């Protein structure tokens, strides 16, 4: 049997203003559940997805902090791009448990991927 395809999902959009981060989550879960080697990277405004303390219930929306927190339980890897965190003045300790990744590491990860999907 062939190795599962390695797919990187770049989540570049902040939560709630656009559906992108929520739709990205659906794809991450779907791909992981169907056996693809799925790596999700929060980058640019997407790093806001990892910030703890989100309270979107007044917006009638699901809390993406909780959704993304569960990813590792489903077998997906979740990373946060540290330069994007720094640019936005967000500390890693204020984020859910994610693996930090810098430019070089992200570049290397992309170089080993079969496909990249951007949200």
């Amino acid at each position, binding site marked *: 049997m062939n190795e599962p395809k390695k797919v990187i999902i770049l989540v570049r959009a902040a939560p709630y203003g656009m559906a992108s981060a929520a739709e990205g989550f659906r794809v991450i879960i779907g791909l992981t559940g169907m056996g693809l080697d799925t790596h999700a990277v929060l980058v640019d405004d997407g790093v806001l997805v990892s910030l703890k303390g989100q309270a979107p219930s007044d917006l009638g929306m699901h809390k993406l902090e909780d959704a993304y927190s569960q990813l590792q339980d489903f077998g997906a890897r979740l990373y946060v791009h540290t330069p994007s965190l720094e640019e936005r003045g967000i500390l890693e300790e204020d984020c859910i448990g994610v693996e930090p990744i810098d430019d070089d590491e992200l570049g290397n990860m992309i170089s080993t991927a079969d496909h990249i999907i*951007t949200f």
Partner: protein
Amino acid sequence: MLRTGPYTSQNMDTCYHLARRFLIKGHEVKMFLYEDGVFNVKKEIKSPQERNIAEMMAELLDAGAEIKACGTCARFRGVKKADILEGTKLGGMTVLVNYLNACDRFLSFGF
């Protein structure tokens, strides 16, 4: 994978121009329409004196493209099976996974 709707961004047009050329060159083309992308296959699209995106999609289908739209996205937007072009289908995440497993090149067009 196309995530934006018709007449809102240029994404659909970019996909069309690329898909047409790939089909002429003998490649297989498969499109997964996600989020507002599902609107691109609404057969009732009317566009007086403008390019008609439903007709452009139909042209790609005739040329051999496979086009499937996310069923959940369609449901959230009130798009029913009867609303979409003949030759296109609604499907789940399995469709995307199958495309990712089968394809040599994957392009995603969103925001």
